[in-house]
């Protein structure tokens, strides 16, 4: 009687411990996600300031210098600002991106006239103030000085300060100006690198696994190979970065900062994960099925391709996607091979210099501008969403391939 009671109690206690462990993990994860999302979400909007544009002659955009013209239009709005310093203060509320936007506006109205209010990208300091990230203290706010605030107040009085969707963040490459900085370049860099990593490591890993599981004789040598592959999986990623530096850059003389090299390095890093996952998936294919195929006169290779591999595929894919997901989040090896450069162009291919998402996060986190804080979190959100999608794909593929029978 007593015995049963204490056993039941022990079981209950154990359940409680388990529950506590799980809830701790969930709460910590929740805090992390909340922190990132609450900081990052504001980066998807940014401040725009309305400017009255009045051009009464028909526009010939090639004859107008957008920079001077925009400034002229601004001065027309504020005729009371006469000194050079005051004028410069007025201009400083806008980002350099405003000039490009104005240029686009002119081009869009080629041959026509313009008269009305148009919104232009504000500087990051204005943005931080408008979003309330920095507060007014005395007569300044963060890096906004009293002169700037005075003019900004006038814009606000006329309801000319608005938050628009941040089109630079997802559609632009990196920039020194936070308000114009985007992660598209980094996303492309990551995409190319991961593509290369997958193309190289998947076939290599699967073939290695097949060879070790099915074709190699079990002897001293195969034991040694096996142990070494397991050890490789535990090698710190920075070491793979050094390896990539030594082999791909120094020996093969491939371009620095290129996703090609990043991808090859990440592929090397992912290889052991794939080999291990593929081997255990291949091992779990029932030998009776392979025997049946062999008994019908399939050769070893036919058996592998007709039965072993298809049956092992869900497991192999899951392992591969987990490996690739790891590689996507990896920064250290990319730093070693120079994918940490400041690149303002969106890479057109795997040979162009690029950064990757995690490296971009690292770079932004390291930047002194206040406005990069929310953008760092936004980039993390994008990275997390990518990883989440990848994992969903893994689950979906496994379900789909397994459901077949």
């Amino acid at each position, binding site marked *: 009687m007593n015995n049963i009671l204490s056993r039941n109690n022990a079981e209950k206690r154990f359940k409680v411990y388990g529950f506590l462990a799980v809830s701790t993990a969930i709460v910590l994860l929740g805090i992390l996600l909340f922190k990132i999302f609450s900081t990052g979400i504001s980066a998807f909007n940014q401040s725009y300031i309305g400017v009255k544009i009045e051009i009464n002659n028909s526009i010939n955009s090639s004859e107008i210098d957008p920079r001077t013209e925009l400034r002229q239009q601004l001065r027309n709005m504020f005729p009371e600002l006469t000194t050079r310093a005051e004028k410069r203060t007025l201009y400083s509320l806008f980002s350099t991106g405003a000039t490009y936007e104005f240029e686009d506006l002119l081009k869009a109205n080629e041959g026509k006239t313009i008269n009305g209010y148009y919104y232009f990208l504000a500087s990051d300091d204005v943005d931080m103030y408008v979003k309330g990230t920095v507060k007014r203290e005395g007569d300044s706010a963060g890096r906004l000085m009293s002169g700037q605030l005075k003019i900004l107040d006038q814009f606000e009085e006329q309801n000319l300060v608005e938050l628009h969707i941040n089109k630079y963040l997802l559609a632009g490459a990196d920039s020194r100006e936070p308000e114009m900085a985007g992660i598209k370049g980094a996303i492309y860099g990551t995409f190319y690198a991961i593509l290369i990593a997958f193309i190289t490591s998947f076939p290599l890993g699967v073939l290695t696994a097949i060879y070790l599981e099915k074709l190699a004789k079990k002897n001293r040598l195969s034991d040694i190979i096996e142990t070494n592959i397991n050890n490789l999986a535990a090698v710190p990623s920075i070491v793979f970065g050094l390896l990539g530096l030594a082999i791909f850059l120094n020996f093969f003389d491939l371009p620095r900062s290129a996703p090609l090299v990043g991808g090859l390095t990440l592929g090397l890093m992912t290889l052991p994960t794939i080999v291990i996952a593929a081997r255990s998936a291949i091992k779990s294919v*029932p030998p009776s099925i392979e025997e049946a195929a062999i008994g019908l006169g399939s050769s070893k290779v036919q058996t592998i391709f007709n039965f072993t591999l298809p049956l092992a595929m869900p497991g192999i894919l899951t392992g591969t996607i987990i490996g690739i997901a790891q590689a996507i989040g990896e920064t250290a090896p990319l730093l070693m091979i120079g994918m940490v450069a400041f690149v303002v162009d969106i890479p057109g291919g795997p040979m162009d210099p690029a950064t990757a998402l995690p490296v971009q996060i690292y770079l932004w986190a390291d930047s002194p501008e206040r406005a990069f804080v929310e953008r760092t979190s936004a980039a993390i959100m994008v990275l997390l969403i990518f990883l989440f999608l990848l994992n969903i794909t893994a689950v979906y593929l496994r379900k789909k391939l397994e459901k077949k029978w």
Partner: protein
Amino acid sequence: MSIEELKVSIKNLNVFYGEKQALFGINLNIYANEVTSLIGPSGCGKSTLIKCINRMNDLVDICRYNGQIMIDGEDVNDPSTDPVSLRTRIGMVFQKPNPFPKSLYDNVAYGPRLHGMTNSKEDLDELVITSLQKAGLFNEVKDRLFEPGTGLSGGQQQRLCIARALAVNPEIILMDEPCSALDPIATAKIEELIEELKEKYTIVIVTHSMQQAARVSNRTAYMHMGELIESGLTKTIFSNPEHIKTQDYITGRIG
């Protein structure tokens, strides 16, 4: 019975799994168009012996053997013999039903497709159907040929495996306890099938059922601890065994 035609002759076969010897100097003749049954207590080496005939033991890394196995006068272990084409001449039905995780149709069609035995879809369809008919399964499954083979009952699965082996039109069929997972009715069906099959094929069947051996086989071989104790016509072995161990086993005193 007409003149016996020697199909398989096994001479002085020794088999080792690593250090452990599993078969000791086996000598056995198997005749064409007959059913030869192998009986003996568990672990005596019956499966090992039939797997030597189609060289399935090649798959076991630690397995070594010496001795001679001749099929139609050709040495199975001769370097010039290709084990893959050898296995197409020898069908095998395993102790545990092991259908492929494919449809019934694809299960049976796998061998013919692999060896390019048919030229058209119609030929293949027909071969699949006749194979299923021979295995006595067609009527039960004709509406679900494209459903997974793993969805059948154990006995149906075993007959599917037989149909699959028949589809490649082998000369010899090795059956390793084909009825061990079956009820008496399914067993009776398979025995009937064996009866029909021996007209065209040479059959070796491993069984734990004395009655089954007595019912279906022309010849019986009794094995014990890796040795072949006695072999001969089933009638003789069951009515008048030479060896005391055989008699003890048949009458249920050992095994």
